[in-house]
């Protein structure tokens, strides 16, 4: 076999129809507000944890919708449930309950595996 010194690179394109979201469906049942996010970024801008970490609730919700929970869930550990995001959310999302629900639903998923 010839050593070419390079090889195929995996694609990073989101193939969105391949993403199966049973857990996100369960999340919507527990906290329907998860569907209400308009990605305005108010939560991220005001996040106490976000000042020191990569925590960003807008990004967390989006990543879960894109099936990227693995890289996302660790961010949630930085959340201190201070509730500032709930104060600023223009869509009135119950962010506290949403964050706790994400924890529950995805932890359950984790346990199933």
């Amino acid at each position: 076999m010839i050593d070419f010194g390079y090889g195929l690179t995996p694609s990073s394109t989101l193939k969105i129809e391949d993403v199966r979201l049973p857990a996100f469906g369960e999340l919507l049942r527990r906290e329907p507000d998860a569907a209400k996010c308009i990605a305005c970024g108010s939560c991220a801008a005001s996040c106490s944890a976000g000042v020191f970490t990569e925590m960003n609730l807008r990004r967390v919700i989006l990543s879960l919708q894109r099936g990227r929970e693995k890289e996302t869930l660790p961010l949630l550990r930085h959340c201190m449930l201070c509730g500032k995001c709930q104060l600023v959310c223009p869509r009135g999302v119950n962010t506290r309950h949403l964050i706790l629900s994400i924890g529950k639903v995805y932890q359950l998923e984790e346990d199933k595996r």
Partner: protein
Amino acid sequence: MIYQGKQKIWSEYQKEIPTDHWFYVRSCIRQTFFPASEKMFLEILRNRLGKDVYETPSHTTCGGIAYHSEAIPQETVMTIIARQFALMTEAGYENYVCSCITSFGLYTEVMEDWREFPELEAKIRENLWKATKREFKTPKYLAHASDLVYKFRNEIAEQAKFRLVNRETGRPLRVVEHIGCHYAKMFPSKGVGGAEYPYVLAGMVESWGGEVVDYPERRHCCGFGFRQYLVKANRGYSLSNTHKKFESMEPFKPDMIITNCPGCPYFLDRWQYVIAEQTGKTYGENGYGIPVFTYEEVAGLVLGYDPWDLGLQTHQVAVEPLLDKMGVPYKPEDKYKGLNGKRLQRPEFPMNIKCC
């Protein structure tokens, strides 16, 4: 697929291509990898069609590959191009045809830039005068060599000995056409058929009896990417983009690929070999690859030239299955010979992709 929809778009991108008197400049990559294709281009235009196509030994690279690899500044490439135009002007021509798509894109861009920024053109004229004491006129018409073959596709069809038809089944061969990115993506109106559904190669395929295959990644780049290929560390990019195209065209079972860019036929050919050697996957029938051709090679086959005069022995993917389908005769024993039948040893066989 609604064919009439494409026809409507094609009708909106008609390019004016004069019939005769061309100043010809060659392509660095094609001279190195497909010299017989350029020979065939001149053979068809001069000897078959009786056209006046002039070439001067003094012309050089346009510098395009160096420019797109950031090895020379923009002013340098513009001044080299100005020198090429000066050679055309001195030879008394005003129609300029180039063999290379990178050149074609650059010439188009440079002339557009000069139109928009006249002070830039003045600067380049000054540079050229200082460096060479030459002066130039910009070409009245600029064409890529494939534009000319497209223009004369029906004349070629009239003289055809073979057609892009499966001799056994009588059905048209399924042909993937791959257009060089710099042909029309920057200036859609400068290409035959525009940027989204270019007709320059599709027209040849139809005229010569084949059927064009439109697959999802048809418009995607072959992945040359200049530095992304030239530097070994980057070649994963190049390979991966070609891989993406083949994965996309595979279900359509194409019989062959026709290209109009210098690098693309080389990459589409060689990356099939690398993919096969690295992953074991081949895209043609029975362990072969999908043969890839330049438009002159296809024209040469249609006109009945010997495949080994066309340089098809220098492809890594075997062309024989396609020759058999078309009914083109060839002598396997002559494939790897030099001039006057001089015997050369044959190349080694790859492990995973079938060759002849």
